[in-house]
């Protein structure tokens, strides 16, 4: 074999025996340091396999001596993040919600924290964009059953709506006028015509004029003589463009006949003070938030 060794005249290097289309390969030696580097990487790999999880077994990989795991790394990151935001949460918990707008940076942090919490706790009913749906209020608009300033929103979130085990819960009880035979079918038809008229959807008619009287006797105590609603009682404004269940004659009839009793859970037993405050700040920031009412102000607009 040794005698058919061919040497390239230009470099003095041996030529390998294979050939492709006349192209031949020189057997140029690799530098030795390259070999050392290669051995070093092998040693590193062995060390790495001992130190870190490496060899796959049936249900898990070998643990590694350093005890590192991706879950552990994540837990560490989360804990670091918690530590980072803890002072912010504390500051928010200690600042009355009405004082938040005076601290724009804290308010901004509260809104962002509320945005995150909303996605976890509130989107199931109110939707991911807080736009609500039939029976679940749209929190972006400027119509509020109980009030749209920061303190009122916070109170509503804290106690919930029609929550049996909270003393301060939002509570309004519209009677089922038709089902419980408080009004006759004709009276219900008349009052529906009246509501359609005061909300500007139908022209006044004979029926609506008859309904005016029915309204004054049965509805005005909560909804007000003009039907503008009463936030103290959670009675909606019937003259505006926003309908929680629908403003067509059929739906209004159904509402008067059966009544509506939507519910929202109390959150003070599930979320801490800071989170509830952040949720209030977030909901307030959606575009319909109102300024705090002057002290002693009574019924809503």
């Amino acid at each position, binding site marked *: 074999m040794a005698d058919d060794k061919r040497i390239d005249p*230009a470099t003095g290097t041996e030529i390998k025996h294979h050939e492709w289309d006349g192209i031949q390969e020189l057997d140029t030696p690799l530098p030795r340091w390259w070999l050392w580097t290669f051995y070093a990487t092998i040693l590193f790999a062995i060390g790495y396999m001992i130190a870190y999880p490496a060899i796959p077994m049936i249900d898990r990989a070998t643990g590694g001596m350093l005890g590192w795991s991706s879950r552990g790394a994540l837990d560490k990151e989360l804990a670091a993040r918690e530590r980072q935001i803890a002072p912010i949460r504390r500051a928010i918990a200690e600042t009355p919600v009405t004082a938040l707008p005076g601290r724009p940076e804290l308010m901004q942090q509260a809104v962002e924290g509320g945005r995150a919490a909303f996605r976890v706790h509130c989107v199931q009913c109110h939707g991911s964009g807080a736009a609500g749906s039939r029976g679940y209020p749209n929190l972006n608009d400027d119509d509020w059953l109980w009030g749209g300033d920061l303190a009122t929103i916070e109170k509503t979130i804290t106690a919930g709506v029609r929550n049996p085990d909270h003393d301060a819960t939002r509570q309004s009880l519209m009677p089922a006028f038709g089902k419980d035979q408080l009004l006759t079918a004709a009276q219900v038809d008349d009052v529906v015509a009246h509501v359609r008229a005061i909300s500007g959807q139908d022209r006044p008619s004979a029926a609506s004029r008859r309904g005016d009287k029915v309204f004054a006797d049965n509805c005005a105590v909560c909804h007000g003589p003009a039907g503008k609603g009463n936030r103290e009682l959670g009675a909606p404004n019937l003259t505006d463009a926003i309908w929680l269940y629908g403003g067509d004659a059929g739906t209004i009839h159904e509402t008067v006949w059966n009544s509506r009793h939507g519910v929202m859970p109390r959150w003070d037993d599930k979320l801490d003070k800071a989170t509830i405050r952040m949720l209030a700040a977030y909901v307030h920031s959606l575009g319909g*938030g109102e300024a705090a009412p002057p002290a002693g102000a009574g019924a809503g607009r």
Partner: protein
Amino acid sequence: MFMSGSASLYEKRKGVYPKAVDGFYRRLKWAIMAVTLTIYWGTPWLRWDRGPYAPDQAVLVDLAHRRFYMFSIEIWPQEFYYVAGLLIMAGIGLFLVTSAVGRAWCGYACPQTVWTDLYQHVERFVDGDRNAQLRLAKAPWGAAKIARRLFKWSVWLGIAFVTGGAWIFYFADAPTLQREFWSGTAAWQAYATTFVLTATTFVLGGFMREQVCIYMCPWPRIQTAMLDEKSLIVTYKHWRGETRGSLKKAQAHPGAFGDCVDCNQCVAVCPTGIDIREGPQIGCITCALCIDACDKVMAQVGRPRGLIDYCTQDDAEAEQKGAAPRPVLKTLLRPRTIAYFAVWAGIGAAMLFALGARERLEISAQQDRNPIFVRLSDGAIRNAYTVKLRNMQARPRPMEVGLTGLPGGRMWTDAGLRETAATTVRTTVPADSVAKLRIFLTLPSRGPARQDFRFTVRAIDREGGSASEPARFERP
């Protein structure tokens, strides 16, 4: 079949002990080394006044705030194409240089070459010139050799440290970072970067040297593909030099020998340890030190200079056939180099023009998609937008956001209430930053389902300036 020994598979590095040499190209290398090292070490310390709202470092890559400062130019992340353009220019510049003067980058300006050169000077200072170095390498390890080695390595390490340490000053305010660095309060990244670059400089400049060029660097391979018969390379003019023979032999047999006196000086001075007389090869970085060495010998023996010289392959062939050597300058002007230069200069001019004409005030608007619109209690429809105002000037600017093509539109920001709605919104955008406004915009419910309009922004200061962005208003 057994291998005949690992020696054939893996090659021990051959020691290279280049001899000191003086001459035109050596002096050129000194000058280029002085200039490049001065630029490298000095640049971060240059100051440039940008007013109270921006850093005063002339060249600064501010990763934390995502800004790149270069004298009067400030580049934002979305203008990164300027940096891409600079890199393209650098690339084409290398093509230009390579097609014109061959591997001049390798021979003169490459950091690997510059620092290896610097390290070799240290080596000569500590150990003496080539012969002393060779003797010392062969000498057994004793107190004197250990002392010399320790001294040399500590000087190398010192150079490596200031090299690695200088790099970090491009990424933060240099005087501040230096104070922090020595007081131990700098970011860990500063120490890690310094450590890594110190280690690589020490190893690459002190020990790896030509191995980097021959085995590790991709650039020689690319250059090999880019060189052609008209590129300048260092050429041993074998038709003039062969047959080699000592001066004594040549005098004894006039006419039988060429100009090469076989003194081996060209090999002795070569920093990559090659013999240029074997012809063009990948190990040649065209540093031209062998030209200096050979010219000196030719002068001593009274023969014309340029036995080894910069020469294109085409010219070499012509010279072999008897043509006179062509001046170097003439080889530079040819269609390929002119084309590279035109492209290079064209990109540069386009970038300069774009830099001069760029707007320092921008607006962008993103419509809320969830929900797209909100019906308000009075029946009006509200859309919401996130409007970003970019003030790229290094001072706060008052600005006014307005609407065009949307009569009746009223807007307010989340900082106010609907009662404050107006046709414009005013705000002051802080220096060199982006202001994010959440804008609520209302229109009566009656109207088309989609209405296209533009958000406009106008700077309401003496300098003025405006920008606009298309947007859309949507109804149920």
